[in-house]
C-alpha cells in the first residue's frame, strides 16, 4: 500500500483517539480548582482542537492543496 495512505490512516485513527481522550480528561477534570488545574483544562481543550485539526488534515478537509488551476 502507498506510504501516504498508511500515514493518513494512522493519523485519522490517532486523531480520533486523542480527541476523545482529551475530551474525556477535560470532562473528568471540569470541577477541579487551582490555577494549575485551570491551565490543564485549557490545555486539554486546545489539545482536542489540535487532534481535530490533525484528523481533518488527514481526511483531506484542511490543508495545503494545490489550488485548482
Amino acid at each position: 500500500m502507498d506510504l501516504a495512505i498508511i500515514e493518513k490512516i494512522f493519523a485519522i485513527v490517532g486523531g480520533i483517539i486523542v480527541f476523545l481522550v482529551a475530551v474525556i480528561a477535560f470532562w473528568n477534570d471540569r470541577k477541579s480548582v487551582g490555577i494549575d488545574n485551570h491551565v490543564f483544562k485549557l490545555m486539554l481543550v486546545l489539545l482536542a482542537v489540535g487532534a481535530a485539526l490533525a484528523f481533518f488534515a488527514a481526511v483531506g478537509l484542511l490543508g495545503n492543496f494545490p489550488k485548482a488551476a
Partner: protein
Amino acid sequence: MAVATLPHAQTADHGEVDRLYAETRDLRLNGFLLFLVSDVVLFSSFIFAYLYMRNTGQGWPPPGINRLDVAFAALNSVVLFGSGATMHYALENWKHGNFGRYAGLMVATIVLGAMFLCGQGYEYTTLYFREHVSWAGSGIFGASFFTLTGMHGFHVFVGVWYLTVLLLQSVHGVYTKQKYFGLTAGTLYWHFVDVIWVVLFSIFYLI
C-alpha cells in the same frame, strides 16, 4: 544573631511544614506559569514575524518550493498530541497513588516525544535532500519554517530529557503522593509544548 540559627524544622509541627510546602509550591507554580507565558511571547514573536513575511505579497509557499506534506505532519502531530494525553493521565495516576501505571504512562510519553523528534528529523532530511529546502538557502520560507519548528523541536528535545529526569527522580522517591510539584511543572511544560505545536501545525500546514 538569633535569627541566624532558627531551627524551624524542630519547632514547627508537621502541619506547619505541609503548609510551608504548599506555599513554596504556590510560588514556584506561579513563577513557572509566568515563565511559560514569556515563552509563549517568544513563540508569538516569531509567529508574527512569519505571518508578516508571508503576507508581503509574493504568494505562499514562494515559487520554487513545494507545499509541505500534510499527511505525514498530521501523523506526527497525532503522535505529539497523544503524548500530551498520556502525560496528563500519568499525573492523574500519580495523584491517585497508582505509581505503576504512572511509570508506564511516563515511559509512553517519553517514547512518543522521541518519536515526534524522529518524525521531525525525517521531515527535515526529506525537505533538505529531496526538495533542496534549507534554513539559509531558501529565502524567508526556509528561515521561518526551520526557525520556528526548530525552536519547537528544541523545546520537545529539552522536554524529553526533562521528563526522563522526572521519571528517574520519582523512581528514587524525590516526590511523594502529596508533594509532586516537579511533576506538575513537567506536565505543564509538556502541555505547553503540545499546544504550541497546535498553532505551528495550523499556520504552516493548514493555511
